[in-house]
């Protein structure tokens, strides 16, 4: 009975179409890049004479209802492309394959203004996007362009430790980000402790990050959705691209399977530091005291096939496989550690009618780590993994220009292996074992409608029903989503959103950086799902035709947040839940940005003022300890609580051959948990004397000094006969700022005669040492395209 009212309301809204009296037809199609057939996401389709417009969805599909006319002018535009005008004779539903070319952009200001106006008139807020062009041009550590690091430059998305890909969106922890690659979840988006992401920029089409105002289609994480789309492959001609850098090389090949219709893309990347370390090891192998340098490398492989199956159907099959490999081997000791993700997506797009589009996908995700070790006579093997099979379907229905309806479902089956250990002696006398297996079924069903009440006011109302079943425990809950937009004028737009999110999977990680041994753990009878409620308000203003100013403020309540008890044993523990402490938190902040997307000089300035507090933690184990309220220390902030965060990004196209880039970042220092006191512990007979034992008290009680850094880049382009190449020169940390990576406290000793011929070490002072990650760091990468 309680659902009747919303159904009635929906029917009422659907009937609110003042234009029904006039005959109308639907113009639909897909926006594409004319040169390579890639779909264009968020292209603007505008009928200027009628004052009507829409944008292409994340699959490039668009649909707009227009009044019947002998002649309708439609302009399709997209930032970075030359706009294209079509004159249509609209006497029936019409399909339009809108193909745009890059090149001389005579009307770039208009294109930019169109794009901004679409942003102003959309209910969507708290969204950041990064293009691969930006990611490629901006200066980065060791020359390895990284789309996850580029998104950190946007407001509200502070990074973790300097140089890493960690994302802490609006006070959320790094596991509260839903990261999807072509619709498949990526559980660990990091290589090398987060210094590089798993996304090879050559294979990525674009990245969109939702910080709030989450569409009902998304669920499962509290703080952000990071949607990474892979390229579909050039359907016009065989082409390739790649790069040779200081630590890695990349190669991408793409081309048509059937010209203009179907295509493929294969992209790979590998680091090669291990090649050099092996040479060094070989050169020193005869030295007795030489300790070999362990092997380390990582690689990624992305593939995608895109098949057109007639006018209404398209099939995509894509996959990702990446591994980090660490190994050490000598006469007595062998140690191998590998970790990585594998994802697979089979996706089918079907156009049921000009007004109804569907995307159905089956995805598979796998993250695992394996450690094997062997010491003469003994062996050791430990690993964890999470595997998902996910079926989802999303429908886009535009009954008229007043409604954009999305509905769909997803069902994901998760399999977890947590801390599987097998160790023992070759003779079988000594044996150790541990490990747990879980499974879980995650469900989601959603519906949303973006309703344009007038040119000034629109509302996106949605509901997501989510659930999780593990063993005999079921959690289910409605997740309301609401977003509204009111335009004060064609330059001013007010926006508001509310979203409730549930998270049924939890990352067990206690370190300040991403470790490969971090593992995912399901909600169980004792470990209930995390929940957040986020309210955001925003104002956007179009300044002239080139600048978009945005201001947003948010408040987020976080419930059932996961921390770990003092001295938690997280590695291989069959009683893992005994190490958990559950509490709550709140985060609020203010974000400001000014952006210029196009022109010779483009870029943005973003500033965030934020605060996050966690409190009321209770341990699941009765005898567990959590140094907080019980000791009278009160609420605390997590280490990534960054009060001020400023980014300035500039890209300057000096000429066709030369582009210069610069980024400047400033942020309050992160928090660290340092011991304010110390004591001396002499221990029992035969044990060593500990002169300085830290006495930790309140958590995260020390703020590191502010960090700031200027990175500069210069891209020199060459145009040989076979294609295009460029040399990308980067100077990271241009003025050699020594930002703090961590601080440690080191006692200094003097040796004194303790009597009886014994020498003892007595501490004389304690020094605080600051360690920086890198000084000024130049690098270069040669990129090519043919």
């Amino acid at each position, binding site marked *: 009975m309680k659902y009747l009212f919303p159904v009635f309301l929906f029917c009422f809204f659907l009937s609110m179409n003042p234009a029904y009296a006039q005959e109308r037809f639907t113009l639909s199609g897909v926006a594409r890049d004319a040169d390579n057939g890639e779909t264009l996401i968020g292209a603007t389709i505008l009928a200027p004479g009628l004052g009507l417009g829409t944008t292409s969805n994340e699959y490039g599909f668009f649909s707009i209802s227009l009044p019947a006319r002998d002649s309708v002018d439609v302009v399709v535009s997209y930032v970075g492309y030359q706009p294209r005008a079509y004159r249509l004779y609209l006497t029936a539903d019409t399909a339009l394959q809108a193909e745009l070319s890059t090149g001389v952009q005579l009307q770039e200001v208009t294109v930019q203004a169109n794009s901004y106006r679409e942003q102003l008139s959309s209910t969507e807020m708290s969204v950041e996007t990064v293009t691969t062009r930006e990611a490629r041009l901006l200066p980065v550590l060791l020359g390895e362009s990284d789309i996850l690091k580029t998104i950190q430059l946007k407001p509200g998305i502070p990074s973790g430790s300097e140089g890493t890909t960690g994302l802490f969106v609006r006070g959320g922890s790094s596991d509260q980000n839903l990261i999807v690659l072509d619709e498949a979840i990526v559980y660990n988006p990091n290589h090398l402790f987060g210094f590089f992401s798993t996304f090879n920029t050559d294979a990525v089409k674009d990245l969109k990050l939702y910080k709030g105002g989450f569409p009902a289609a998304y669920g499962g994480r509290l703080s952000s959705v990071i949607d990474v789309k892979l390229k579909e492959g050039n359907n016009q001609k065989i082409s390739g691209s790649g790069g040779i850098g200081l630590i890695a090389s990349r190669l991408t090949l793409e081309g048509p399977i059937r010209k203009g219709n179907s295509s493929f893309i294969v992209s790979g990347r590998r680091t090669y530091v291990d090649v050099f370390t092996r040479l060094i090891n070989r050169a020193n192998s005869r030295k007795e005291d030489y300790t070999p340098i362990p092997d380390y490398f990582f690689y990624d492989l992305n593939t995608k096939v895109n098949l057109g199956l007639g006018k209404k159907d398209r099939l995509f099959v894509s996959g990702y496989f990446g591994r980090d490999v660490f190994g050490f081997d000598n006469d007595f000791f062998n140690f191998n550690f590998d970790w990585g993700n594998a994802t697979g997506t089979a996706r089918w797009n079907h156009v049921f009618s000009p007004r109804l589009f569907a995307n159905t996908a089956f995805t598979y995700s796998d993250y695992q780590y394996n450690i094997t070790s062997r010491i003469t006579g003994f062996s050791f093997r430990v690993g964890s993994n999470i595997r998902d099979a996910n079926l989802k379907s999303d429908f886009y229905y535009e009954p008229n220009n007043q409604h954009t309806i999305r509905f769909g479902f997803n069902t994901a089956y998760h399999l977890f292996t947590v801390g599987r250990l097998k160790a023992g002696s070759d003779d079988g006398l000594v044996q150790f074992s541990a490990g747990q297996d879980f499974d879980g079924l995650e469900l989601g069903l959603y519906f949303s409608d973006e309703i344009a009440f007038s040119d000034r006011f629109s509302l996106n109302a949605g509901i997501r029903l989510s659930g999780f079943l593990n063993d005999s425990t079921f959690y289910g809950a409605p997740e309301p989503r609401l977003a509204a937009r009111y335009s004060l004028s064609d330059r001013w737009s007010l926006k508001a959103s509310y979203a409730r999110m549930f998270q049924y999977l939890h990352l067990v990680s206690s370190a300040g950086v991403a470790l490969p041994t971090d593992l995912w753990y399901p909600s169980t009878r004792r470990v209930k799902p995390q929940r957040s409620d986020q309210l955001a308000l925003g104002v956007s203003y179009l300044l002239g035709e080139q600048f978009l100013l945005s201001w947003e403020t948010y408040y987020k309540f976080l419930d059932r947040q996961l921390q770990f008890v003092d001295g938690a044993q997280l590695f291989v523990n069959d009683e893992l839940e005994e190490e958990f402490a559950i509490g709550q938190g709140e985060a609020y902040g203010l974000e400001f940005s000014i952006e210029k997307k196009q022109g010779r000089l483009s870029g943005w300035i973003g500033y965030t003022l934020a605060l996050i507090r966690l409190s009321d933690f209770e341990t699941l184990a009765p005898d567990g*300890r959590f140094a907080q309220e019980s000791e009278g220390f009160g609420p605390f902030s997590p280490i990534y609580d960054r009060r001020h965060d400023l980014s300035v990004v500039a890209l300057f196209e000096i000429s066709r051959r030369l582009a210069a880039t610069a980024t400047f970042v400033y942020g309050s220092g992160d928090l660290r948990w340092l011991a304010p006191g110390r004591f001396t512990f002499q221990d029992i007979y035969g044990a060593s004397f500990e002169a300085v034992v830290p006495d930790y008290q309140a958590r995260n009680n020390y703020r590191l000094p502010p960090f700031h850094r200027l990175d500069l880049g210069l891209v020199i382009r060459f145009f040989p006969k076979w294609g295009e190449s460029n040399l990308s020169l980067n100077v990271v940390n241009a003025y050699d700022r020594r930002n703090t990576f961590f601080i440690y406290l080191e006692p200094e000793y003097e040796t004194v005669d303790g009597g009886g011929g014994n020498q003892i070490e007595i501490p004389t002072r304690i020094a*605080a040492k600051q360690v920086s990650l890198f000084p000024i760091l130049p690098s270069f990468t040669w990129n090519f395209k043919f």
Partner: protein
Amino acid sequence: MARIMLPLSFFALLSGMFSCNLEKEVDIELPAYEPRYVVECYLEPGKPITLLLSRSAPYFKPFPDINQDFLDNILVDSADVSIIYNGVEIPLENRLILNPLTLKVFNYYAPVNVPYDTVNPFELRIMDRAGQIISATTRILPVVPIDSLVVQFAENDTLARVLTYITDDPAESNYYRRMMHKGSLDSLAIQDFAADDRLAEGVIAFGTGFNYAVGDTLIATIFHIDKAYHDFLESLSDAASANGNPFAQPSPVISELGGTADAIGIFTGLSYGRKTIVVSR
């Protein structure tokens, strides 16, 4: 090509020039800290009762000069300290005991040998001059004997390792402290760590590296300890190793001491199995 290679070489040179000096000493201000009492009391069967009562200090407080009242600055005297066993209170005298060989210091002492009693508890009670109380209870656990010490030489090498085997009772949760000394117990341990049996399936082997030559004397000790002592040792080790380590989670020292004084430390029984072996082929 030379036009390109020259700047590249310059970049490579710059990379090398600046890849150093990433550490520097800084002044930092830590939150205010109220010193706490620190207790160490180990009840070893057959040995007199000794206890060390000291105090902690703010992290950057200057250390006292070794020649000027070093111990006076650390030790806490004039407290009332007693052990209650089988309903009998055994007072501990405030008296400095220094073992010149091991350099272990205790400031409270009772000339009563600790009985090997694995049934009845021992209680500790300390009251300072201000009337603040420190209390704790412990038991002495049964000895877990070392089954064997096995010497294994590496293939084609003169160095050997020593494996220490014990039999763990799988029906109980047991905790151990393993120590290995070379030459004499008066030297510092070459191996010293706490362990539990949660992953073990009966026999446990503690190994060493291939570091020992023919003629070396090795002394293996396995302490059978309770969970409180195990957690204390582990947290002590975690606290020391997490001191600024970005890959580790800091941990306060987990102490089971009770009372009103907010003290930190350990009150535990010590029972151990010990074996000695001389490395030979």
